[in-house]
């Protein structure tokens, strides 16, 4: 009886328009960071700095927006700081050819430390974390009034539109432009790409800078559009989930959108379940869901996934 009531409550929830609008909102940072990671990996570099770069983006974006009162300046700062640490990872893994695993973890640790340090230095230890006036929704004229589709798709904050538009844009860049061809070549067979005259290092640096900027943006979305504040747990593993989402998406921007929406739905669902106190279960079980789902999804799909062939392999000019 209780079980049936729970299931019907779940159905009611899934049929609400608000739920789908929420899915898109919580999927946006996942999508932005997944696209960023996808770019790096397509060029042959695994970016394990993602978790830290997102945190630093969230902190930088929030601090700049807090003191200037300009949300878009915060976004710009987050983009820049993300690109900067993407380039630092490039220095370590591309120019010096160091282990991508360890260098990425190092970037995450460094960015995490820097975020906490800077936040404490700027804001001290306030009883209540300072808040900003977050991004407001920007209804698309004409479309926002559509039934169901309007509130879900066309009544969101600008960054949601941006993330959604990035999917076709990146797909076009990757698959239809010489730049994209070069980027993919560098990730698949850097030796061949180099003999064909592609500047391997430059392509990888570009991918890392762009990818890092997207990760910083994803972090800033969380502090400027979702939580309206910076907290130490603002990322809490979202970056790591995105590493797995790239695998689930098989390194394709379109599938990345699908994977991010799927996990956004899972996240929105666990948030609803948590707040409704459903099933009387302890709330941490719901927080665990995305991570458990990631492991399961990887277990099901990793075997058939084919990563860019040169992922994790440093390219050294003299070893051509």
């Amino acid at each position, binding site marked *: 009886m209780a079980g049936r009531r729970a299931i019907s409550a779940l159905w009611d929830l899934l049929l609400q328009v608000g739920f789908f609008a929420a899915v898109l909102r919580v999927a946006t940072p996942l999508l932005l960071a997944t696209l960023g990671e996808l770019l790096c990996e397509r060029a042959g570099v695994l970016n394990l700095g993602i978790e830290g770069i997102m945190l630093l983006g969230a902190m930088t974006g929030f601090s700049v927006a807090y003191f200037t009162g300009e949300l878009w300046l915060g976004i710009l700062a987050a983009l820049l700081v993300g690109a900067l640490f993407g380039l630092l990872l490039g220095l*370590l893994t591309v120019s010096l050819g160091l282990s991508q695993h360890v260098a990425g*973890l190092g970037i995450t640790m460094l960015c995490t430390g820097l975020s906490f340090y800077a936040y404490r230095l700027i804001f001290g230890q306030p009883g209540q974390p300072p808040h900003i006036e977050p991004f407001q929704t920007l209804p698309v004229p004409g479309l926002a009034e559509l039934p169901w589709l309007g509130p879900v798709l066309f009544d969101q904050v600008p960054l949601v539109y941006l993330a959604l538009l990035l999917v076709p844009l990146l797909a076009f860049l990757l698959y239809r432009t010489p730049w994209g061809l070069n980027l993919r070549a560098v990730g698949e067979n850097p030796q061949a790409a180099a003999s064909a005259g592609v500047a391997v290092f430059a392509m990888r640096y570009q991918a890392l800078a762009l990818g890092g900027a997207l990760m910083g943006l994803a972090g800033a979305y969380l502090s400027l559009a979702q939580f309206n504040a910076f907290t130490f747990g603002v990322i809490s593993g979202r970056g790591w989930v995105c590493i797995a989402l790239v695998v689930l998406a098989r390194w394709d921007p379109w599938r990345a959108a699908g994977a991010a929406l799927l996990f956004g739905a899972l996240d929105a669902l666990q948030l609803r379940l948590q707040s409704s106190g459903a099933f009387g279960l302890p709330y*941490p079980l719901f927080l*665990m869901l995305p991570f458990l789902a990631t492991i399961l999804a990887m277990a099901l799909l990793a075997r058939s996934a084919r990563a860019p062939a040169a992922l994790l392999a440093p390219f050294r*000019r003299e070893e051509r």
Partner: protein
Amino acid sequence: MSRLRLEPRASTPAWLGLALPLAALAATLILCSGLILLAGAGVLPAYQALASGAFGSRFNSFETLVKAAPLVFTGLAAALAFRARFWNIGGEGQLLAGAMAAAFIGSQAGLPGWALLPGMILGGAAAGAVAALVPALLRLRLKVDDVVASLMLNFVIYYAMLALLDGPWKDPLSGYPDSPDILPAAEYPMLWRASRLHLGVLLALLAAPALWFLVRRTTFGFALRAVGDNPRAAAHAGIRAGAVLLVVAALSGALAGLAGVGEVAGVHYQVMAGLSPGYGYTGIVVAMLARLNPLGVLPAALFFAAVATGAETLARTTGVPVFLADVIQGTALLCMLTALLFTSHRVRWQRRGGEAGH
């Protein structure tokens, strides 16, 4: 225009082994001094305060040693796994698994008193081993990347722990989301009267040479180094890489689990949300700084424990945020990784045009 060029070294001079970690640490402290200036403190006084906070008195030194113990275990766990190219980033989760097993066994009044400590140690090690076998098996059987799997498992185990503490395991006496205290007979004895220096510190000190012996002086150690250095050659030599990976994972997880046992039996006597301030992750840095040498883990763990204890004093006495310790950790990892390059390569500045086609 000139450009940085890396040339492979024919051999590695012996003095580099000691000089590189020291150089990396020096570079780290210099790089981080900018942050100290930003906080409005003097660099030298700040590092002095850090050092005296870590070693200035017997109490402070003991605190540093107590913090070093879990780092030795998680450092050994990472060093062993990385040596065999098993990317175990799951030390944090394995530590928590070990801690939960220890806290559970240590609170069983039905067990005879003498069985409590051995039971906790074995149970904690086993729990850590099981937690580490999950990503190892996922990699072997299903080709799941071990970094991602072991990282995810950290969160799964952490939230599972919180769920237990919030539900069936909540301490009925305090009502806080903490586990019930372990029995007095389950506590590690103190090595020094009226101090916090517990048996786990001694165990950590002994574990390092034991692991060194295992890696450098046994057939199994040879196999794991072969798998780590050149999997293809190892396979030709008849070494079963899969079996080696599983044993390495179990051992690595057990070591991280022992870090958790020490935190429960020697420090907190219960499990709660803040049990580990990221010892599992710091262990990775410790292992790298030690160049994956089990004996090197001891000074490396001591260094990061000193930074952590010292940073607390530093934050109290000056305005430098305590998170300087975290920045030092990340910077040290990157500096050491870069320094390691010099063991296999030498760096030359090369004039553009010195070699055709570049």
